[in-house]
C-alpha cells in the first residue's frame, strides 16, 4: 500500500511544484509562495553545499518540477547538471523561463583576479555564499516574488502580499541583528572555508585566515603552523567553523592559541536548532560571544 502511494505523481498535490537546490531557497520560496507553492529541496542543509550527491531519487524530483531555483555562482556545478540532464524536463533547463539562477541578481564579492586551478577550487564569478548576508535575503525574496508572479501571474497578488509581509518582518529582524552585531564590528576571525564572507562584510567582521590553504584544498601542516603564528600575532576572537568539515585541525589550532571554536550553520538544517531562515540568522548573530 505504501509502495503504491510512492508511485503517485507528485503534481497531484500542489498547485506549483518548485524544485530548489538548497534549504534556504526552499524556505524563502515557501514564504513568498505560501499555499500555492510546494517546494522540493534537493540538497541536505548539513552537508557541504559544494559536494551534494546526485542521487537518482533527485532526478525524479527535478523531473516532476514545474520550475527550478538554484543559488548559482557555480556552487551547484558538481551535482546539479547531471540531474537536469537526466530529468528530461524542459521546465528545468537552464534557458527556460521557469529556471531561476539567483546569483544573476546579486553583485558577488571576492571575484578572483586570475583564474587557475593552481589556486584551488575557485569560483570564477566570485564567492557564491551570498545568502549569509541578511540584506541579500531581501533582494532574493523580491526576485523570487517576481519569478513566481511571472510563471503564475493569476496569483501574483498573493505573492506580492506574502512578499510585503515577509520583507516587513525581515527588515525588523535586520535592525535587531544589526544591534546585536554592532559590538562585533572589527572583530577578527578565522574560518575553515570563507563561507561567511557576506555575513562578515555585512557586520564588519574581519576574516584574517582560512584553515584550508586554498579553496577546496585540505589543510596542510605548513599552512596550519603559519596560521597558528598569525593567530598568535593577530589575536582573533574565534574560529568560525562550518558544520561539515572535520574540526580536527581547528581543535589543534585552538589548543595552541587558546582561540575558541564556534560552529556556524550555513543553511537551514545545518544544526538541529536551525529550523528556518530567522533562526539561522538568530543563531549566527548570537554565535560570536
Amino acid at each position: 500500500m505504501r509502495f503504491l502511494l510512492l508511485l503517485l505523481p507528485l503534481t497531484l498535490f500542489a498547485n506549483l511544484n518548485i524544485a530548489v537546490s538548497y534549504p534556504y531557497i526552499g524556505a524563502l520560496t515557501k514564504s513568498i509562495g505560501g499555499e500555492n507553492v510546494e517546494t522540493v529541496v534537493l540538497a541536505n542543509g548539513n552537508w557541504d553545499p559544494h559536494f551534494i550527491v546526485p542521487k537518482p531519487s533527485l532526478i525524479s524530483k527535478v523531473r516532476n518540477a514545474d520550475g527550478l531555483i538554484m543559488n548559482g555562482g557555480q556552487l551547484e556545478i558538481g551535482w546539479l547538471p547531471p540531474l537536469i540532464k537526466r530529468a528530461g524536463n524542459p521546465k528545468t533547463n537552464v534557458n527556460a523561463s521557469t529556471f531561476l539562477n539567483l546569483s544573476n541578481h546579486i553583485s558577488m564579492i571576492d571575484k578572483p583576479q586570475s583564474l587557475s586551478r593552481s589556486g584551488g577550487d575557485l569560483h570564477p564569478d566570485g564567492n557564491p555564499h551570498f545568502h549569509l548576508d541578511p540584506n541579500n535575503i531581501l533582494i532574493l525574496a523580491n526576485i523570487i516574488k517576481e519569478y513566481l508572479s511571472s510563471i503564475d501571474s493569476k496569483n501574483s497578488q498573493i505573492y506580492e502580499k506574502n512578499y510585503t509581509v515577509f520583507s516587513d518582518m525581515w527588515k525588523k529582524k535586520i535592525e535587531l541583528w544589526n544591534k546585536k552585531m554592532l559590538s562585533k564590528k572589527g572583530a577578527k576571525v578565522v574560518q575553515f572555508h570563507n563561507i561567511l564572507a557576506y555575513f562578515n562584510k555585512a557586520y564588519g567582521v574581519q576574516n584574517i585566515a582560512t584553515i584550508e590553504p586554498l579553496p577546496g584544498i585540505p589543510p596542510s601542516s605548513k599552512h596550519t603552523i603559519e596560521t597558528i603564528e598569525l593567530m598568535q600575532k593577530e589575536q582573533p576572537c574565534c574560529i568560525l567553523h562550518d558544520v561539515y568539515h572535520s574540526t580536527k585541525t581547528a581543535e589543534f589550532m585552538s589548543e595552541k592559541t587558546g582561540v575558541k571554536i564556534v560552529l556556524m550553520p550555513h543553511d537551514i538544517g545545518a544544526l538541529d536548532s536551525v529550523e528556518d531562515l530567522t533562526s539561522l540568522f538568530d543563531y549566527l548573530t548570537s554565535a560570536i560571544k
Partner: protein
Amino acid sequence: MKKQLCLSLVASSFLFAQTDIEQLRTEMNKQQLIIEKLQEKLEKLENANANKEPIKTEKFVAPQREAFDQSKFMPDISLILDASYVSRSKKDDEVAHLEVPSVVHGLLGSHSDGDVTHSTYNANNGFNLNYAELALSSSVDPYFTMDAIFHLSEHGFEIEEAFVTSTALGHGLRAKGGKFLSNFGYLNEKHHHAWSFSDMPLVYESFLGLHAINEIGAQLQWTAPTSTYLMFGAEVLQGENEQMFGNNTIGDVEAPIAKGSSAPSLFVAYVKSSIDIDDTTILGGISYANGSSRVDHSQEEVPSAFSGDSSLYGIDLTVKHYFDSYSFLSWQSEWLMRDMDGIGYALDPADISVVTTTTNLRKKQAGIYTQLEYGINKNWSAALRYDTIYKNDVVEDGVNLNEPDSLNSYSAMLEYKTSEFAKFRLQYNRNEALYNEDGLRQKIDTIIFQTNIAIGAHGAHSF
C-alpha cells in the same frame, strides 16, 4: 493700461541707467577674471590628460575586432590523461597467449589483429599510456546538447563517444543518437576515469571486451512521473561488439563462411529504480540485450568463427551510504549471463578460408563482480573486488565440453587524490581465470600504479 506700464518701465530704466552702468562694468571685470582663471585651469587639465594618453581621434570608429567573435560559445573542453606503471608476475608475451577457456582469448596484454593492435588498459609490464581522453560538450540549440569523447592513444585516434541528446522533449523523455556507451547495467555507461578500479571487472571484459557495449545507434529513455525514481530505456544499436555481437559476413563475400545479418542488429532494454533510506541510496537495475553474433577470430593463433544469436542478461545493485559530505561506504555488484546459440567454425590455420569442422555450438556463461569501497575522506579511498565466472557451459553438437567454471579474480586498491582533478591509485590483482595452451590454470599477480589527471572543464558525473 498696458501702454502706460511699458512707458513707465522704460522711463524708470533711464532714471537708474547712470549708476547701473558703473555697477555692470565692475561686475563684468570680475566675471572676466573668473573666466580667465577657469580657462587656465582647463588648459592645465587638458595638457595633463594629453601627457597621459593622446586624445582619441578614432572616437567614432566602432571596435571591429570582436564584431563576429564567437569564442564565448566555446564548448567545455577537458583532457584526461591516464597512465600506469605495471609489474606483472608473467612476461607480456606469455600473458598475451593466455585465455579464459571458451570465453575470451588474450584477456590481459595486447595482441595484434591484422593491422590493428588491441590492448587493454595497463597491458604491458612497465609504463603504459592508457589514453589521453579529449572531451567536448556544449548545448547545440534550445533542443539539443552534444558530447564527444575521443580516446587518443599511441595506436591511434578512437571515437569513444559522439552523440546528440535531446533536452526539450518533455514528459521525462530523453533521446540520444550517435556513438555512445549503452546504459546496460551499471558500469557499462561509466567512463574509465569514473571506475573504482583501474581495470574492468572480469565478467564485463571477458564477455564484451574493453569498451563493453559501445555502439552507434539510438537511445530513448523515460523517467516515470513518480516520486520514486523509475526509468525505462531502450536502445537500437548497430551491433559490432567484437566479443559477442556482430552482423558482418565472415570470410570471402563470394563464398562466405557465415553470411552477415541485416543491421542494426543489437537491441537493448533496461529498467532502473532507486530509493533512499536516510543517507543510504539503493540503485538497482535489470537489463537485457539481444542481437546477432558474427564473431570473427580468423586472425588468431587457432582460427575460428561463430555465427548465431546471442542474449545478454544483467542485474545490477549499488548500495551507497554516506557518513558525511566526504566519506561513504559503497557496495556495487553486477551479475551478467550470456546465452550464445549458433554454429562454430574451426578454420584451417594454413588457409583461413577453409572450414575444417562445423559444430552446433551453445554457450551459457555467467559471472558476477562485487566490490566494496570505503571513501575515507576527500583524499583517501580503498576498495576490494571479487570477480568470478562461475558458469561456463559450452555444448558442442550436444556434448558438454566440461570447460572449467570457477574462474576467479581478486583485487584491492588504495587511492589518493590531491584534488578532484588528480588521482593516484595503487592496485593489486590476483587473476586465477586464465589458462595456457596446455589447459593449465595460471595464477597471475599484477601490481598497477595508476595516475589519472584531468584539466579543463569536465561535467560532473551522475550517480
